[in-house]
């Protein structure tokens, strides 16, 4: 596609429920990143995928967070047993090689009630 797309754009859920957030990177981009931005805060790295290599999960805040990338393209970020502190905008980005500029999707705004 022309850019990175994410869905849903907004998600409201109840505490304790699981959520799945989806990211479609730019076609041909080998690297895919997930970031989180809490209200008024900077972007916080969560996880990075590069080609077929094992993902860098060093930024995941707890074991309730997981992500996968199928076929080297679409990625899904899953948050289990959501907590109110998980409320944030979740941004996905992709880059051609992993060493160049990252292009961001529009984000998913997650609200946990």
């Amino acid at each position, binding site marked *: 596609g022309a850019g990175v797309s994410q869905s849903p754009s907004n998600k409201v859920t109840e505490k304790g429920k699981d959520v799945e957030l989806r990211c479609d990177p730019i076609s041909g981009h080998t690297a895919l*990143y997930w970031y989180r931005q809490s209200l008024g805060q900077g*972007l916080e790295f969560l996880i990075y995928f590069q080609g077929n290599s094992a993902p860098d999960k060093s930024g995941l805040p707890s074991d309730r967070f997981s992500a996968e990338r199928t076929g080297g393209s679409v990625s899904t970020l899953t948050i289990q047993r959501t907590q109110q502190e998980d409320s944030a905008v979740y*941004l996905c980005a992709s880059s051609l090689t992993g060493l160049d500029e990252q292009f961001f999707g*529009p984000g998913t705004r997650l609200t946990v009630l």
Partner: protein
Amino acid sequence: EDKVVQSPLSLVVHEGDTVTLNCSYEVTNFRSLLWYKQEKKAPTFLFMLTSSGIEKKSGRLSSILDKKELFSILNITATQTGDSAVYLCAVHNNAGNMLTFGGGTRLMVKP
């Protein structure tokens, strides 16, 4: 741990003013520094800087990197209301993984 600090935290100017946004960093094995503009949710890419002293320019925006003093500036001349946004600075290390972002500078341009 890589660290990026931006200043000022926020800035209010009037149309036509020139602004300078600052970004200082500490990073192991520096690869590049990037500037993004964030108006609503998605940051949009502005510049990537890898070499000291070479100005990158796009219209009224320009940026330069000083790898000795570990900082970069983003200049916006003849500001317009459409420049109102949060400007984010990020650094990329040679591990090639994530960007480390600063907290951003919120710019408001008044008519």
